[in-house]
């Protein structure tokens, strides 16, 4: 990664993110929006993040892309605790604990 590319990404991503935040509150104001647009926007995060995580879980870089029991178990624990408790912090701590436990046991 060269410095110019990194700063190019930082600046454009910052600008783009600002425009996304600004578009309605700054430009559109309180004019009504088409329901279909809002309906799609509601699902952007739940549509992108699982797609981003899945390959990292199934083919972790740290193991050279080979599925790894510790990481799969940590995934299942994080999902279960997150689902039951709805608590982000509990899910992270449980997932990390599961990861370290299995990594330790399998040495």
């Amino acid at each position: 990664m060269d410095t110019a590319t990194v700063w190019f990404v930082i600046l454009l991503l910052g600008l783009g993110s600002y425009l996304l935040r600004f578009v309605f509150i700054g430009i559109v104001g309180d004019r009504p929006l088409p329901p279909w647009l809002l309906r799609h926007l509601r699902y952007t995060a739940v549509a992108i993040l699982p797609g981003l995580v899945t390959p990292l879980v199934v083919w972790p870089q740290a193991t050279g892309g080979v599925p790894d029991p510790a990481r799969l178990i940590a995934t299942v624990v994080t999902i279960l605790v997150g689902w039951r408790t709805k608590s982000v912090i509990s899910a992270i701590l449980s997932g990390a604990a599961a990861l370290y436990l299995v990594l330790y046991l399998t040495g």
Partner: protein
Amino acid sequence: MADETVKSTFSKGVRDAVPFLLVVAPFSMLFGVVATESGLNVLETLGFSVAVIAGAAQFAAVQLMVEDAPTVIVLASALAINLRMAMYSAALTPHLGAAPFWHRAIAAYFIVDQSYGLSILRFEQNPDWSLKLKLAYFWGTVLPICPFWYVFTLIGALIGDAIPQWMALDFALPICFLAIIMPMLRTPAHVAAALVSIVAALCFAVLPYNLGLLVAGLLGMVTGAEVERRTTLAEHS
């Protein structure tokens, strides 16, 4: 309470947002660590947090840059994750849209998951709040979140090298994202969107330039919207 003041409403916002530091501080520190481990210097890492101020998009951008994805793909994927900010902006507009332009222009930068989520919740609980009170509350939620986002990114970037190998930091990002996704799955439409995204990400992983992620995101989004539309139709018929 009819006698709420700007000051008391601001404090209420601060009090409501403080617990979220438990998530924000470790998450931003982790970004600092992961970004510097990925080869960014301290200034670049902090630059990300100041310019973008959205954890998931920042992590995704760094992850894709490590994978040598083309810059266009890096930007498109990270901005797709931040599309939800447009939704937040739209949701806050009926409440804050009457503020002066300069005020809205500054507030827009500070629309993040926590300031949006808390503000919308309280605005709906207190429909009688004036614009002044609503703005006070919004800024109250920003204060304990955004400055610490920068500070803990910096701390993470500075201690990055001190993190030992056994801590398997490569997997901190997936665990954080999974933990963030789970509470979002409030309705069958959200679950459907997530499941389609997972299946599509696996099926389209062979596509070059990480295009698989964009395809997965698009299919998931359309699925969520369509399931919601049909659910609403069924409820009204």
